[in-house]
């Protein structure tokens, strides 16, 4: 029954991100209890050979005593225990054809994931808000009040300026010291190659990088009744467009863009997921968990 609250149209009416995230995650987790496929616990996962630099505290000394070999004991709950979300706050994110803006949708996802990570799994979580530069950075932490700080950061992330992936992502390297999950939420209006080139380096530190591509349904399948002047939200450039073009050529080009982005992301070892703002939020959470499952 709580599933109906995961509809982004309904969630748009909830002003508090805290309440919103709690509603989404609790509803979502309540739904998951019936599923045996997903689980969250500190149970044993695997043994891994010791390599120099590993923390000696995680060496299984009992096993060493029996076999004289050093193995590290790993648990599920310890894997990727740091979540960093990179949120695109450029002007294009404020587009909407319905009651929910792309930015709102992105916020809902981010808030829900933060709640899930901190409240349910005691993971560290951080936030980087960027457009053409890094606007806000909240260091990943599990400290008391971290969730509130993250929500406040999300609240402050109003769309403005343009997107520029290359410039802010240079700084991301400085922020991401520990391995973890890096989640990039954006509409990715840029050439796929440029995007991948900018984001792929994040993976070099052992990060698991997931791209959440947020789009409005009207951006994928736009409908025009007649000739119309369109204005770019980021550049303010105007252009008169006819419906015939939108019906045929535009859709083809958009499909090609999505396909190229997906392909190149996978090729670069990045996970990619397209999120359309008319879909319910549990789909996004499902994608996230599926990707984590795969990563473990």
């Amino acid at each position, binding site marked *: 029954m709580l599933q109906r609250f995961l509809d982004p149209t309904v969630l748009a009416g909830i002003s508090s991100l805290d309440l919103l995230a709690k509603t989404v995650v609790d509803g979502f987790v309540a739904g998951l209890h019936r599923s045996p496929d997903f689980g969250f616990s500190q149970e044993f996962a695997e043994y891994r050979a010791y390599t120099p630099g590993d923390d000696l505290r995680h060496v299984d000394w009992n096993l060493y005593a029996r076999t004289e070999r050093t193995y590290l004991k790993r648990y599920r709950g310890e894997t990727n225990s740091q979540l960093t979300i990179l949120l695109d706050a450029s002007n*294009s*994110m404020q*587009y909407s054809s319905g009651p929910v803006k*792309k930015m709102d949708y992105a916020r809902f996802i981010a808030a829900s994931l933060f709640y899930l990570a901190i409240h349910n799994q005691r993971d560290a979580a951080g936030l980087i808000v960027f457009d053409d530069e890094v606007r806000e950075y909240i260091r990943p932490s599990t400290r008391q009040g971290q969730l509130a700080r993250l929500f406040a950061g999300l609240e402050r992330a109003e769309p403005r300026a343009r997107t520029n992936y290359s410039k802010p992502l240079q700084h991301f390297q400085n922020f991401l010291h520990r391995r973890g999950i890096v989640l990039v939420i954006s*509409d990715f*209006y840029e050439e796929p190659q440029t995007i991948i080139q900018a984001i792929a380096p994040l993976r070099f530190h052992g990060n698991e990088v997931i791209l959440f591509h947020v789009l*409005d349904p009207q*951006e994928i399948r*736009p409908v*025009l*009744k*007649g*000739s*119309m*002047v*369109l*204005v*770019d*939200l*980021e*550049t303010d*450039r*105007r*252009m*008169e*467009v*006819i419906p*015939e*073009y*939108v019906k045929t*050529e*535009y859709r083809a*080009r*958009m499909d090609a*863009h999505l396909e190229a982005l997906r392909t190149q992301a996978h090729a670069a070892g990045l996970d990619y997921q397209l999120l359309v703002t008319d879909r319910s939020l549990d789909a996004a959470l499902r994608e996230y968990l599926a990707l984590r499952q795969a990563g473990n």
Partner: protein
Amino acid sequence: MGFLAPWFLGGLAALSVPVFVHLLRKHVTVPRPVSSLMFFERGIQSSTRHRKLKHLLLFALRFALVLLVVLAFANPFVRRASADANSRLLLIVLDRSFSMKAGSGGMSAGTRFDDAKKQALATLAARPHGEKAQIVALGGEVELLTQPIADDAQLRAALESIEPGDGHANFGELGRAFRALTETVHAPIDLHLFSDMQHSAMPANFGDMVFPPSVKLTLHNVAKGAAPPNWTVESVNAPAELADPKDPKLSRVEAVVAGFNTPAANKTVSLVIGGKVVATSKVNIPENGRATVEFAPLNVAYGSDRCAVRIDGGDAFPADDATVFAVRRSDPERVLFVHEAGDTRSPLYFGAALSAVAQSSYVLQSVVAEQATDLDPSKFAFVVLSDSLTLPSIFEHALEAYVAKGGNVFVALGTSAVRGTRIPLWGGQVQDARDYIRDYARKGAGIGVGQVDFSYPALAQQQPGRDNGGWPEVKVDYAAVVDTAGARVAARLTDGTPIVLDKQIGEGHVLLLATGLDNLTNDLPLHPVFVVFVDHAARYLSGTDRLSGSRLVDAYVQLRSGTEPAIAAGSVEVTDPEGRRPLSLSEARTAQSLRLEHAGFYQIHFANGQDAVIGVNSDRRESDLAAIPDDVLELWSGSSPDAAGGTAIATAPQETKQPFSLWWYVMLLAFLTAMAETAFASRYLGTQREGA
């Protein structure tokens, strides 16, 4: 072309509104925001052009709509000929007067009316196809039987339905009717008159029968040759009421027989009572002359007797050989005369005058006012209150009820009528009392009766003469001034004081003489006109003059009083000479009067229970079959005094042009434009909405 309300053209300033709106719309576009123009390309030019064209069409429609609405308010018109040659109106007038029943003469055995109807039908059939026509019957009055229509069957049926009547035609009435008609019908009229062109149908003034210039008159005279000889009973003088058949003064019938265009001849004249010839008389009628025949005594039975005087005409017009009349025999009716105790002169004068009247049969019962308590007024023909202003209350109430039910009272105000005295039944007081004796002493001349309404039944005189019926010789010394509200003033003194008044109360009447009957306040009882006055007043007040006697065709009989409430009224039954009931059930309850359309005996049962039999005769002017001289007919038909030819006159109105308003057409166009604008605008605005 012009405008009937040009000041509305100021509304053309509103044309700037669509211009302004469309100019603004061209510059103000509502762009649609998108995240990125990355995948878009600029549209081709042709589509933008198409869109602009649509705007231009919308703008044109809006511009036209405002323009048309303003024009509609300004009411444009064009001048159009009021009628063209094809819109002539054929008017067929068929004379159905009494004289048309006469034989047509010549070879045919039919009447003049039959010939006239045949010719009228032929004229109707010969008219151009599609030409509008109208059928008119001319009898005692002008009857428009159809509207101007082109339907042959309807016109023919209307013409066929005309039957010869008993009325008297008057070409003056015809002229007046068509002068009124041409004020509404602007098309030229071809008038075909089918008549015997009887000379007696001409009005006294030739100008009355002249038609307006737009009427082209064609005469069809159905009377061939010289007028045939015709004898008729021109008039009958017989008592309507008879009490004693042995009374030599009253029980007699005097008839005047006349010949028109006849040689001297011996004719037999008969008196017919109840269908039986009771007396005959030979009479020698001179050439084109008259003779008088007298029948006495008149032995009629009790009740209403249907009588006729008939002449053995043996002429071409047998319909006028008899004149009918009704005589009602009854016992002498009593008249209650109430007077003051000391007044013995007024009953003497009034009784003497009443008994001197030739045609009345009344017995006067005089009584002192104080002794009238137990008397029932309904047992008397009428009641006279001679200077009796103080009545026993019981008797006064009885009198009020009597008048309300239809009884009539004659009130004479004598010396008792001083200022402030209440007048019984009249409903008011004596407002003033005029004493003219002092005037007489000072000026040496008394005051007389100045104005007399001779149409009032109690004062009726057919030919009052130059002495005004003898009334000016009456000297009045004392007269009361009464309230005239709701009353009819039938006579006034020379100073304007009403002297004879009539007021209707309920169904009855109160006749008020504002002076006395006792030869003290005036010298009226000493004049011959007093006898005539008493005679007429007695017949009027007793109501017997409407129960019998004779009338002319097209006269009216009053069936009930005008102030009578319709619900309380009883039903009236009328049987015409053919035995039919001319009034429908609803008319029988509401009709105020009846027009006597046919010759013969009418039987009428009035609402108050009285029965009447009335003999109705056609106007004897119809018996003179002489036609209008040809030169007069030519003058009437072929020309008017101020024009050269009828054709020229008839075509004159064709050139007049009438303004023809285009308002309706402009408004229709505006409506269509508005619909088109709505269709285009909704499509256009719908696109804008989805794009927004």
